[in-house]
């Protein structure tokens, strides 16, 4: 019973937090560029407007895929709040991400196709990292259960510092931020238009946006497990990480997928393995 209530709270709170975070993100970005920026509530206005637009699709697959993506990401957040198994959450989230790509592949537009291919490569890049992070958590706490990991008496970051950095790679990719923003560019008037989201429009694009908020909260939730013992330090860790993401986004340009795959896999996997060996030995 308690788990159901927690899951429902997660379902309601996560998009609100995610939307607010998107608004704050744009504000801070504007501040870094010495602009004023949009209102904090901007993300909600955007999505409400999208829902008010005429539904226009290239084919029915897009409707199905947009809804599945939303459902899967909402479900993964609900499972996280209900303190379910990390591996289950991981697979539900991955299924959603793949449906999003399928919707983009269903349209023949070259931008959408290129964006979808790149999104697949991004998924290929961050999923192994996430699995390794979860494996590290298992080695440190002896469980894949979110509740048990949260109840662990010491902060995990002391044991898994390198894996936290590995997780921030996944976070940057998931947030679609530079230098890894090549499946959908933030500024649409570039070579890629809007990449994987180009062909989603109106209410269906709104669904994709809301699903994206859910995913953001999920990854931040995973990050919060690294310092679950103290609310203050946990908040500081999250705020610091997100601020670093925005800074990185503003300070770097978009790279190529080859670079990402080489860089993230070599450095990321190396750090993960070193951390795991250290954990095993110590």
């Amino acid at each position: 019973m308690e788990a159901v209530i927690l899951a429902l709270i997660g379902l309601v709170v996560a998009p609100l937090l995610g939307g607010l975070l998107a608004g704050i993100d744009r504000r801070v970005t504007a501040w870094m560029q010495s602009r004023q920026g949009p209102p904090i509530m901007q993300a909600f206005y955007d999505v409400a407007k999208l829902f008010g637009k005429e539904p226009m699709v290239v084919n029915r697959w897009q409707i199905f895929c947009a809804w599945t993506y939303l459902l899967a990401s909402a479900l993964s957040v609900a499972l996280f709040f209900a303190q379910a198994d990390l591996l289950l959450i991981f697979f539900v989230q991955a299924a959603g991400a793949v449906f999003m790509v399928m919707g983009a592949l269903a349209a023949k537009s070259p931008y959408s196709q290129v964006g979808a291919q790149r999104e697949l490569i991004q998924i290929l890049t961050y999923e192994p990292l996430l699995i390794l992070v979860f494996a590290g958590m298992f080695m440190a706490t002896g469980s894949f259960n979110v509740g048990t990991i949260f109840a662990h008496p010491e902060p995990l970051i002391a044991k898994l510092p390198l894996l936290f950095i590995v997780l921030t790679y996944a976070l940057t990719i998931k947030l679609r931020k530079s230098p890894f923003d090549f499946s959908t560019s933030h500024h649409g008037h570039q070579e890629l238009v809007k990449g994987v989201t180009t062909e989603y429009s109106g209410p269906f694009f709104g669904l994709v946006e809301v699903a994206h908020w859910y995913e953001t909260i999920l990854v931040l939730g995973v990050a919060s497990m690294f310092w679950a013992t103290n609310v203050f330090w946990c908040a500081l860790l999250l705020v610091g990480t997100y601020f670093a993401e925005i800074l990185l986004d503003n300070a770097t340009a978009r790279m190529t997928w080859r670079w990402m795959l080489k860089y993230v896999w070599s450095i990321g996997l190396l750090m993960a393995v070193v951390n795991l060996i250290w954990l095993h030995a110590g």
Partner: protein
Amino acid sequence: MLKKFINKSRIKSPWIVHFDCGSCNGCDIETLACLTPLYDVERFGIVNVGNPKHADVLLVTGTVNHRNKKVLQNIYDQMPDPKAVIAIGACGLSGGVFKDAYNVVGGVDKVIPVDVYVPGCPAKPEAIIDGVVEALNKFAEKAEAAG
């Protein structure tokens, strides 16, 4: 209440797609200047999305000619309703200095319905921002009339 919020959001989140029909680039530079820190149109939630399928407002600069009128029509058709069109500069309004050229059709309104006309050669960024605000009021009215 939800309807009200959606209507309010329409005014607060105009996404723009800019099409250079056959402009001398004078008006284009002024249009893009609106995005710079000096004018910062993102304050009003305006985003240059560069994708007609995501856009609410179509900004057209320059004259329409026989070659690009189909492209203009195509971009317009790809935008989901409700949408608004803004013609920018003397060229977009009537053809401007190129009006009598053999290949020029004339202003933007020869091909698609235009909601707001922003005059000038080139139009000032302030005038363009004003035009967008005017267009938003217009389609808020339209949305209200439609219920």
